[in-house]
């Protein structure tokens, strides 16, 4: 279908919208298919618009303004708490990783402790529990100290700690100095 637009079409639409027809234009609209279609479509749709205006009550501008403010404050609040949430999640991740690393690092001690627990009679487990815990911790500390005195251990540990510390300092400085 080839689009055909009559030169009078815009006048016809305007006449429908305003309700002001002149006789020539009305005659033309009756004869021209394109203008007749335009007039019919425009008339029906404008009646729908008039119907909406009469039947539907639009919300007050004040309500929309205040709700927009409310939403903007909410969005700003969410933006403001984003770094805090991020740091919280980061802290949780650090704790989990630290525990996992400690377990991995001290696995021989933990295994020995668990083995010792399994080897004792059940009645002795509770009574000697704290003794075993303190023993395991002592072993862990001595083992850790041994690792620190190892040739590569202290340097690596210090480097990792320094990197994490600097990372946190940079992160804190960014949020302290950032305007938002």
């Amino acid at each position, binding site marked *: *279908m080839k*689009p*055909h*637009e009559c030169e009078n079409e815009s006048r016809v*639409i*305007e006449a*429908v*919208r305003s309700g002001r027809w002149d006789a020539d234009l009305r005659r033309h609209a009756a004869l021209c298919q*394109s203008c*007749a*279609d*335009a007039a*019919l*479509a*425009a*008339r*029906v*749709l*404008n*009646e*729908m*618009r008039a*119907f*909406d*205006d009469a*039947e*539907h009550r*639009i*919300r*007050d*501008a*004040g*309500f*929309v*303004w*205040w*709700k*927009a*403010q*409310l*939403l*903007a*404050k*909410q969005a*700003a*609040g969410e933006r*403001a708490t984003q770094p805090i949430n991020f740091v919280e999640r980061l802290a949780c991740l650090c704790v989990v990783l630290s525990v996992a690393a400690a377990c991995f690092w001290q696995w021989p001690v933990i295994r020995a402790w668990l083995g010792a627990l399994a080897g004792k009679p059940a009645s002795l487990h509770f009574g000697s529990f704290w003794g075993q815990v303190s023993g395991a911790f002592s072993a862990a500390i001595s083992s850790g100290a041994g690792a620190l005195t190892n040739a590569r251990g202290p340097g690596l540990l210090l480097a990792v700690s320094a990197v994490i510390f600097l990372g946190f300092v940079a992160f804190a400085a960014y949020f302290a100095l950032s305007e938002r």
Partner: protein
Amino acid sequence: MPEEIILAEAQQIARAMGAADGVETSFQMDEQTFRIFYDRTARPLWSYLYRSSGDAALADDFMQESYFRFLRARFKEMDQEYMKNYLFRIATNLLRDHWRHAKVAPQAVAGREEDGGVPTPEERGDDRLQMNSDVRRILQDLKPRERELLWLAYVEGSSHREIAQRIGLKERSIRSLLFRARHKLAALLRRQGVVSSSG
């Protein structure tokens, strides 16, 4: 709930939130300017959203969302026509996103009679309502883009350039799309025997 009560509550909450979190909302437009702009654009925008979607509740929600997004935008020029086009563009994009994400046929959305905005003909026993209902059913047979085009061209009186800006199409394609949409609507109206009261 009466609108005055909702408004009073909204103001109270907004004040409380502002005082509590110290967050400033910086819209480019002040309230007075917004009110003037809103009074000029709200009705056409609501009708456009309603007639394009066929859902009054959706039209209410999208109108609020459109103004919210509009207020957050930064304009280089505060020209009224440019801003109105921008607002309609936001509304059109909301409709598109809705149809895309909801994965429902726009026709299915458009067919709801019980959407709260307009009473059914049976409720009122009115010829105008009956015709409104008939036309609404006919509009469902058009594609969403065709409804948008027809509404902007024949109700809003927008030029092809304005339509292109409002619905994100190329200006040169508007003419043929509009012609086809108009031809389709006129044929449907004649086939269904829907004739307006004014003749």
